[in-house]
């Protein structure tokens, strides 16, 4: 299975400076992150809020500039390409966001976005047909959608329209930032199943960003777990989620409320009062909560290959 690498993120770092002239705080929202996405692959970037995953997405989409690092898309430097030829990048890399009601302007009819995307991004003249096809792919028709405002749809329908819009230009990479977290639990699977179908039928790659490990397990091929701006574990979704190696991954997996009354949480856990401190740690950022911490964890942690995946932890080096 020799798939081509579609997107390569190399040593990506983004530092935000907050505060005024008198008290500056520098937060490393993304710290030296590297990963690849293959063609026809669903790759999950998982983590809680504040892990940096949305920042990575915004940089890939060209909405934020990185402090350092490279993004290589189809062999070319993406940040350079975005400055020179935004349009062709937009055709190939599209996105779907978390809140379907915010994705569209509440005062504009939704079909306008479909038409604009088709026209602006140079779909061939018969854009009506292209739009109808994209809507059919997500289980809707033009008549379902035309002349309606966002408030007339349910969250699930809007999210599907948002996905249809992103497919109009026949993209190769779809960045999906928490696409189902605001959709009712009973409707989530239809959207997640859609991603799997698109991967199989049109070879779409998806960068699936989420904190919901259960859907990540269900739909993705590989996964990277992010914590405070760093990737702490990365590998095939089977290995990482059924047999986690990094203490944080283990904690995440344990904390998921299983929809099975026979499996209840047994251990007690600690949560932090102040989150800022963790960002400033020089060594392993998880040190204050890790049950296995050692003295050497205060130093920057190397990436180690363990059992077919990459783990950032001194336990294994």
């Amino acid at each position, binding site marked *: 299975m020799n798939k081509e690498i579609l997107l390569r993120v190399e040593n990506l770092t983004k530092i935000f400076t907050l505060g005024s002239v008198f008290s500056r705080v520098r937060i490393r929202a993304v710290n030296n992150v590297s990963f690849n996405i293959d063609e026809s692959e669903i790759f999950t970037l998982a983590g809680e809020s504040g892990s940096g995953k949305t920042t990575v997405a915004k940089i890939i989409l060209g909405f934020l500039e990185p402090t350092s690092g490279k993004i290589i898309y189809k062999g070319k430097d993406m940040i350079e390409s975005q400055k020179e030829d935004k349009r062709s990048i937009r055709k190939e890399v599209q996105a779907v966001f978390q809140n379907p009601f915010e994705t569209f302007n509440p005062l504009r009819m939704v079909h306008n976005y479909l038409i604009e995307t088709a026209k602006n991004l140079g779909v061939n003249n018969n854009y009506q047909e292209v739009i109808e096809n994209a809507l059919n792919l997500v289980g809707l028709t033009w008549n379902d959608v035309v002349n309606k405002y966002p408030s007339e749809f349910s969250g699930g*329908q809007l999210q599907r329209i948002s996905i249809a819009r992103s497919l109009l230009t026949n993209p190769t990479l779809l960045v999906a930032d928490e696409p189902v977290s605001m959709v009712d639990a009973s409707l989530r699977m239809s959207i997640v199943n859609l991603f799997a179908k698109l991967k199989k039928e049109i070879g779409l790659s998806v960068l699936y960003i989420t904190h919901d490990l259960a859907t990540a397990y269900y739909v993705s091929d590989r996964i990277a777990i992010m914590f405070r701006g760093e990737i702490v574990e990365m590998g095939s979704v089977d290995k990482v*989620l059924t047999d986690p190696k990094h203490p944080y991954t283990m904690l995440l997996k344990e904390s998921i409320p299983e929809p099975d009354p026979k499996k209840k949480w047994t251990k*007690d*856990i600690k949560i932090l*009062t102040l989150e800022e401190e963790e960002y400033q740690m020089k060594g392993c950022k998880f040190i204050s909560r890790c049950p296995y911490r050692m003295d050497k964890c205060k130093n920057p942690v190397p990436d180690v290959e363990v059992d077919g995946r990459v783990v950032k932890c001194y336990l294994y080096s």
Partner: protein
Amino acid sequence: MEILKAENLKAYYLLDIGGKLHSVRAVDNINISIKEDEIYGIAGESGCGKSTLIKTLYGMVEPPLNVVDGKVYYRIDNEYKNIFSMNGSLESIRWNYISYIPQGSMSVLNPVVKIIESFWDFIGSHVDISDKSTWRKNIEEHFALLGLPTKVLDAYPHQLSGGMRQRVTIALATILNPKIIVADEPSTALDVVAQRAVIQLLKEIQKSLKNTIILVTHDMGVHASISDRIAIMYAGKIVEEAPTSEIFENPLHPYTKYLIGALPKIGDKSYKVSAPGAPPSLINPPSGCRFHPRCSQAMEECKVNVPELINVNSEHRVACFLYSKEREL
């Protein structure tokens, strides 16, 4: 023993939009009975009316929400009191008999004062707190019981993480040992790890105080973890109610089956299906059984008549014509 009862409860939002009167039937003929020493879960999608139901059970009914019919009883001192005819005295039992943790309760704390001040504000309006030093000790003991660090009392809300704020809010809601705690999506806005801490905290509190918690959340995983009984709500009505294990192992109502069947689990890659269609509007709900447009087993009767909640066995109730027919046979 029962501690809270709702009979034929109907609460609608009466809205005047563009000159016409619309009623949003968020709570439509609800009959439930909640016992002491249990965690009663209410589950359902967004827009099914569960938040409204819980506000009504708490007595927080302000326009445009109106109680159109029905009664809610609390059992106080072995007497059943209808809370809607209590007028002034309902205020006085709040917080020490029944307390409420609202959705997004992280904003319940006053952002410009220290946590301890918020405590004085809340407690002071119900109990005489002239003896602050004894009360401070009580609060610190309460925090210790809940596993919260006491240094938090002297911090400002913005200095705490979201999960910690939520736990402080829960501590606030339980300081006067209420008999009933009503929690509306207490862990929904939190990260997975913080969520677990909050849910475990609620369970600890219930275990030690042996009181009642009414927990509203759409997350079935949370219900599986702590609820003793679950009521499934759909479009303003309760469609099924049973002990937690029954609901997960033997769901009867077609909607419940979809709900349970659509839950992904780690280690399980089998194909999951969602319920088709979308939940109905509460202004103009479908006739008859409100789920019939999406139900694969809908019969003619379902389009016309509204199924009542009937007992399938002593603990399990369901509102579906599939089961009333079986009983008749």
